[in-house]
């Protein structure tokens, strides 16, 4: 650990730290553009110059390029260094337009900050400036090339870090142009990171354009709710509207970046149809009366039918605290334990994952530094986009990726693809878990595993199911040793699937609930941020069950099908409007802080014009309450998050760290489970001759929250059916033909897409909410199906 002196202060830093980072540790503000924590140093912009007075290097040096060494004496304040930096910034500013007042970056612009920090305040240059034509880069990113200072951060992010190939740098020396070959939407699902990474106003957030100044935004540290990875995000709100999301920093999880689903999926919070008032049979009523009505109805039914006539349904969308208080409410009412999840197979898979994962599970940081990633039945870009980016970093560091999947899984990096049938996956994992020999065609995989020093087995709970997930954990356990750690990462369906599954323990699942509803025993159902009508694969049976209910109560912030059917609807807050904890797929508890208070966006109440001038003492649309607070009140507990966390930690030993959790910091792993369910699935017979329909999540359109976000509308796919080329040829089907898909008692006409990289005999449709494909559910074994050609376009 070298010790050096910067500006007369001594600092000791880890080996490999550069002098710029060392100065930052001392709190010294050093101008920099091309250096970025996630991208490293390239020494290109020349504004981080310092004077090296003593030690192994001397003279004016770029501090980002010099490794800190013992005995260095460095000055950032030496007159030469100050003059050097102010000249460089003056050059950088030569061509820069004077347009801060109309630039969206203003107020959070590194160029503004660094210009001031470098002491350049008067423009001497009065010649012509270089100007450019901007490009249309699609729905997410606005382009204003005149503001560019050629720091290359965008290219290094887009191409190197994210693996995009359609954005880069054109020209040379004075004529550099950062853009695409021609106008068109950026192809990378991580393009939104350009907004955060560009230190000037060239690349800004298009949906957010001209809405707010940075200093007017309400921001807080939060967690992305759009998949189970739980990336750190910083949502920004103003005028009662969630206006944007930027990446937060969590070195253990997302690092510095997020995906475009996480960045542009926020608009569900502002959805015009969102429930905002308590409703009893469609009539508005105050909260106090609504809660009274709920309590009264429940106690009536308990008196008449006994407490097991009440069922409680939690979800992987609701926070840990809310889900816990639901269980607490059940205990007080004497009901059965809540069911956590409207999709029984997904719930069972999540529970299988929670059992072991905490000690074997890899963080995204561990994925990034792994040397072998076996991706078995996971589609990272669809089921957890930032995992795809983490895998890319492993490859950039020399790691290897092998994909076993029936789907044509795409990754933003090179990978070896070994197609297999869905039912083969658990078998393969079973063989690995038993330490037996893999079939000959998978010998490369066996060899790679043999050589790897830090392998990670990656799976997706939708394709693997409970048994496959358990087998994956068992395989990792078998391959894991003190000398050669082997880790796992299993993608789960929802943001808090892990937390919900952990609370579920060995409680009932949705299949049991359906049985109880069938038998007529259940008279009332209370849903916590759950939408069984959209998520339960047996919708028909569920509808019959709901018909028999005497009382359906729903707490939610989404305008869901179930919420629309509710006798009593209690509006809750979205993640950004409250505080709580989510547990990500590796078992990391992450607290999120409240960004803003709910209310109807001014954009709606003002109908686009000046805010309305009718005054009232209440805020329109401000009634939604945090679900945990509603439940605490129903339980007669103090509405105090810290106390609830303490109580929960005391009851659930695996959540021991919960009371110390804060929204700052990387979160905390739950403690390991006892590994009881690492049983290995039995061999199953292979499927019959008919085509098998597999329903899969997609990057956009599957996840319930972001599916309601208007900024994502332009990129949501239209329904289609994907066929293996050889099967299509047999059936006389060409790409884009209209085909009829018959499966599960339904018939749909869909355009065909073809792939040569998927397993034969398989037909794939995406899970697309709000479309005719909504009634096909992921996380289920494949369905027998038929496909016939209808017409050629």
């Amino acid at each position, binding site marked *: 650990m070298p010790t050096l002196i910067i500006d007369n202060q001594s600092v000791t830093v880890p080996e490999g730290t550069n002098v710029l980072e060392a100065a930052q540790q001392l709190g010294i503000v050093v101008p920099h553009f091309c250096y970025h924590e996630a991208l490293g140093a390239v020494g290109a912009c020349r504004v981080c110059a310092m004077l090296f007075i003593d030690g192994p290097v001397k003279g004016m040096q770029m501090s980002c390029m010099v490794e800190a060494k013992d005995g260095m004496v460095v000055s950032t304040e030496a007159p030469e260094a100050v003059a050097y930096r102010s000249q460089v910034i003056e050059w950088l500013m030569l061509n820069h337009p004077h347009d801060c007042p109309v630039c969206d970056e203003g107020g959070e612009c590194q160029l503004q900050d660094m210009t001031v920090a470098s002491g350049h305040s008067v423009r001497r240059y009065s010649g012509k400036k270089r100007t450019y034509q901007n490009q249309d880069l699609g729905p997410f990113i606005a382009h204003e090339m005149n503001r560019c200072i050629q720091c290359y951060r965008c290219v290094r992010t887009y191409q190197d870090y994210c693996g995009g190939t359609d954005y*880069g740098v*054109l020209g040379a020396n004075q004529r550099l142009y950062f853009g695409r070959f021609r106008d068109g939407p950026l192809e990378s699902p991580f393009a939104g990171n350009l907004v955060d990474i560009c230190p000037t106003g060239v690349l800004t957030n298009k949906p957010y354009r001209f809405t707010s100044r940075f200093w007017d935004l309400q921001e807080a540290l939060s967690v992305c709710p759009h998949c189970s990875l739980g990336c750190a995000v910083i949502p920004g709100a103003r005028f009662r509207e969630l206006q944007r999301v930027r990446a937060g920093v969590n070195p253990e999880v997302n690092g510095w970046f997020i995906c475009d689903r996480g960045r542009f999926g926020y608009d569900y919070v502002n959805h015009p149809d969102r429930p905002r008032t308590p409703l009893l049979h469609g009539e508005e009523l105050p909260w106090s009366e609504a809660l009274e009505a709920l309590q009264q109805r429940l106690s009536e039914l308990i008196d008449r039918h006994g407490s097991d006539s009440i069922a409680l349904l939690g979800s992987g969308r609701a926070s840990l605290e809310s889900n816990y208080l639901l269980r607490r409410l059940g205990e007080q009412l004497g009901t059965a334990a809540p069911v956590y999840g409207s999709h029984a197979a997904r719930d069972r898979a999540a529970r299988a994952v929670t059992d072991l994962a905490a000690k074997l599970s890899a963080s995204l940081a561990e994925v990034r530094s792994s040397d072998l990633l076996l991706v078995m039945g996971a589609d990272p870009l669809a089921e957890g986009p930032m995992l795809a980016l983490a895998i890319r970093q492993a490859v950039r560091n020399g790691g290897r990726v092998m994909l076993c999947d029936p789907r044509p899984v795409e990754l933003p990096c090179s990978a070896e693809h070994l197609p297999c049938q869905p039912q083969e996956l658990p078998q393969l994992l079973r063989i690995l878990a038993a330490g037996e020999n893999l079939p000959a065609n998978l010998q490369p995989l066996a060899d790679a595993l043999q050589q790897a020093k830090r392998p990670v087995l990656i799976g997706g709970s939708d394709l693997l199911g409970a048994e496959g997930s358990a087998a994956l954990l068992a395989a990792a356990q078998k391959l894991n040793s003190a000398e050669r750690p082997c880790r796992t990462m299993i993608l789960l369906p929802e943001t808090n699937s892990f937390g919900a599954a952990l609370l579920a323990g060995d409680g009932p699942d949705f299949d049991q609930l359906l049985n109880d509803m069938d038998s007529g025993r259940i008279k009332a159902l209370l849903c916590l941020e759950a939408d069984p009508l959209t998520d339960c694969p047996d919708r028909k049976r569920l509808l019959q069950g709901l018909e028999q209910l005497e009382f359906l109560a729903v707490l939610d912030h989404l305008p869901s099908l179930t919420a629309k059917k509710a006798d009593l609807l209690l509006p809750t807050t979205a993640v950004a409007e409250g505080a709580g904890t989510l547990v990500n797929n590796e078992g990391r508890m992450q607290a999120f802080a409240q960004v803003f208070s709910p209310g109807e966006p001014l954009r709606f109440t003002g109908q686009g014009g000046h805010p309305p001038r009718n005054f009232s003492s209440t805020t329109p649309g401000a009634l939604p309450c945090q679900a945990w607070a509603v439940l605490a009140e129903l339980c007669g507990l103090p509405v105090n998050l810290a106390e609830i966390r303490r109580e929960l930690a005391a009851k659930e030993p695996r959540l021991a760290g919960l009371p110390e959790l804060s929204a700052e910091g990387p979160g905390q792993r739950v403690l390991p489970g006892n590994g009881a369910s690492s049983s290995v699935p039995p061999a199953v017979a292979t499927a019959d001759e008919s085509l098998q329909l597999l329903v899969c999540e997609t990057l956009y359109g599957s996840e319930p929250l972001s599916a309601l976000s208007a900024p994502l509308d332009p990129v949501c796919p239209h329904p289609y059916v994907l066929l293996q080329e050889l099967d299509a040829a047999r059936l006389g089907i060409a790409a884009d033909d209209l085909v009829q898909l018959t499966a599960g008692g339904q018939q749909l006409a869909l355009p065909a897409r073809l792939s040569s990289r998927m397993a034969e005999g398989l037909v794939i449709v995406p899970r697309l909410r709000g479309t005719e494909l909504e009634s096909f559910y992921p996380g289920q074994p494949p369905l027998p199906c038929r496909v016939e050609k209808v017409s050629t376009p």
Partner: protein
Amino acid sequence: MSELLPAEEIAELKRQIAAVHEPRELIVEVLQAVQQHHGWVPDAGVELAAKLLGLSPLQVDEVATFYDKIYRSPVGRKVIHVCDSICCWSRGAESVYRHLQQCLGIAPGETTSDGLFTLLPTCCLGACGEAPAMRIGDRLYGELTVERVDAILAEERQEAEV
């Protein structure tokens, strides 16, 4: 795209590309082949090169636009590259450049109306010992004076006429 490159040449390029470890190595060669046949490299030429190399058009265009000897817009039959770097500048390149503009009646970046000459500045041609220097097509000319420039232009014109 057929007019951009003859089929035999495409086949030959494909062979070369298959033989290298990293197709990017051959971006310049493929672009030069297109330029040889077409005179300059239109967007379709970049797209053709990208297809042959298995890269995105942007990845090819990054290289194409970096080099000033790859022409991304139409040029005359002969392109004059006048060095404007330090050695040539110190030995009178500016007056040579001015003289060329006068003789040809065009500004830098323009093409004579007969479509023969395009005039472009260039950075060091590696002929500093013979500064000031310029290049017309693949031919290098050093020790330039106003008189010599007149003679060279006349020769080049004559050559173009035969």
